[in-house]
């Protein structure tokens, strides 16, 4: 499908892009591609290379490793609800930064609409938008500091 989309006003409410001007949002909207996943479809595939950096616009997704739902037990030793990714959440960045196959599946739990940046474009994108890089860093730090609150 076409690689450029006009989704700027969808991005305006996403925390990751909160510091960007309308013109920058327009450009970001064309750098990313909009993708849609039906419930049960994998947006990221464990063990595969070439998956992109995804930001969720609408819908929810689950994290699965070896087919099993990931919950916060892994980091907190407390059995809780499964991790659920929602609007404004992102995934795929660690796989790209470490340049290795994905270590988990991300599976659409509902109809899922994302914007996706190809893996090879993430680094230049973040250098081009340091405000986004800072927001991304904040998000990663928040996940590390307090996994219990990670799910907003």
């Amino acid at each position, binding site marked *: 499908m*076409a690689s450029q989309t006009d989704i700027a006003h969808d991005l305006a409410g996403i925390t990751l892009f909160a510091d960007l001007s309308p013109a*920058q949002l327009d*450009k970001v909207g064309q750098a990313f*591609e*909009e993708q849609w996943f039906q419930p049960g*479809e994998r947006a990221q595939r464990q063990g595969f290379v070439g998956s992109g950096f995804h930001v969720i616009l609408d819908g929810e997704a689950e994290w699965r490793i070896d087919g099993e739902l990931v919950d916060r037990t892994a980091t907190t030793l407390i059995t809780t609800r499964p991790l659920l990714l929602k609007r404004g959440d992102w995934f795929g960045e660690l796989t790209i930064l470490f340049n290795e*196959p994905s270590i988990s599946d991300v599976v659409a739990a509902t109809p899922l609409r994302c914007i996706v940046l190809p*893996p090879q474009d993430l680094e230049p994108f973040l250098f081009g938008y340091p405000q986004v890089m800072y927001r991304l860093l904040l998000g990663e730090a928040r996940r590390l500091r307090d996994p219990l609150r990670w799910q907003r």
Partner: protein
Amino acid sequence: MSQGPHPPGDYKVVVVGTGPGGLQLSSELTKVGVPHALLSQDEGPGGMFRRFPLFHRLNTSSRRFAVVPRESMAFYRYDWNSLINEAPEQRALVPEFMDGLHYFPRRSEMADALGAFAERAGVEARYGCRWESTREDAGRFVLGTTDGEYTCDIAVFAIGMSEPWRPPTPGLELVPHYDDLKGRDAQSFQGKRVFIVGKRNSAFEIADEILPWAAQIVLGSPHHVRPSIVTGVPTPPRARYLEVFEDHCFGGGSFVVDCAIERIERNGDGWRVHAEGTTEPGTMVFDVDEVIATTGFGTPLGDLRELGVTTFYKDRLPTQTPYWESSTVPGIFFAGAATQGQVGLRKYGFPNGSASVGGFRYNAVVQAVEIGRRLGIEPDRPELSEDEVVPFLLDQATNEGALWRQPAHLARIVSFDSAEGIRDEGILPVTPFVDSAGPAAAALVVETDPEGKLQLCVYVRRGGRVSEHLLPPAFMHDFRTPEHHAELESVLAGLVREPVA
């Protein structure tokens, strides 16, 4: 009421549209043995190629000569525009109509080839019959047309992406769209300053056409363009439209500007375009004589949204399953350019070929088999011997056009079952294969690496889990080498033959 075949009535399948998507699907449905009606609002075959592209040749190529015979299936790898046919004398029809002046066919050459395909392949349609409405009745679909009602179990819409689309930029609705330039010649832009909103191929097509006449050309959109010769995939501008881009680079009278258009307003007899720089920040104001919106097209879905068909991509494409069926209304399928709404694996962000004939013609072949299966017609699954498997797959990797024109999307799949033996399952979408459990099997696809280079990938399913194996590149893309044979045999160890103890 129009005259012709397929009068209103009750059918298993109804196909709407006689562009390349509808013609290909109809031909394949007949081959599979699915009775169906084919309807078209046009007076003859050709679809969008009866109107577009406006000025230029197509931007998809057809070689007239290649290293394989024109009448072979392998020739389709080099001919992106001809529809597929089993009969050798009906293959590669587009090169037959090309005059040899260029390897991009003219619109008229493409239209003639589509007409010849319909005639020679015996694809019959009811022309002059316009689809107007759709409803569900007792679990079936009823299509209202200008000739009457068609009732069916499955409806396939091969209606292209032909509805002009504009983003909600103030003032953009006042200026002509690409679609509105029909009948206008380049000379009418003589001495004018022209602002073209957009930087996709249609923008460059117009710019290239009016370059000899316009006084100044500005192409404006937020994204920074990376020509296909840089990316290695068909991103705009394509090589054939590079004159305008080069004129921009050389400081001529053309400008390719990265800017977000804020509004467009009347300015005397001309227009004033207000924009904000994206790559280089700053306010920009352009005073020009003409503004043209080359902002793309959407799928003319009519009342299908009311039926429950959901869309994405700014409401321009229907959401689809891997077999190009509406994800929300089972039984409603799409063919042709709208199938680009199903992106496949989308490795490294590179697109598959479903936006153009060279890709979506293969989708129609796969879809016809799937529709046949839904109606109880099981496809052939030829048996392969152990010794045949690896050479067969390597020959497919070298010659099968479906793999080359639909990278990371369509796969040649071979299954390994102790009871059934080794079976060629045919060309199928790769995403259901990697996303579902099933018998031991291998799926062969062509993919693109991060640098845009084409490579071969084999997905192997064992014990319900799928693993990914990249194969090394091959000199001149010929994978029929001892090294690739050994590599593939190793990847398939334990499936083709028992593993060596």
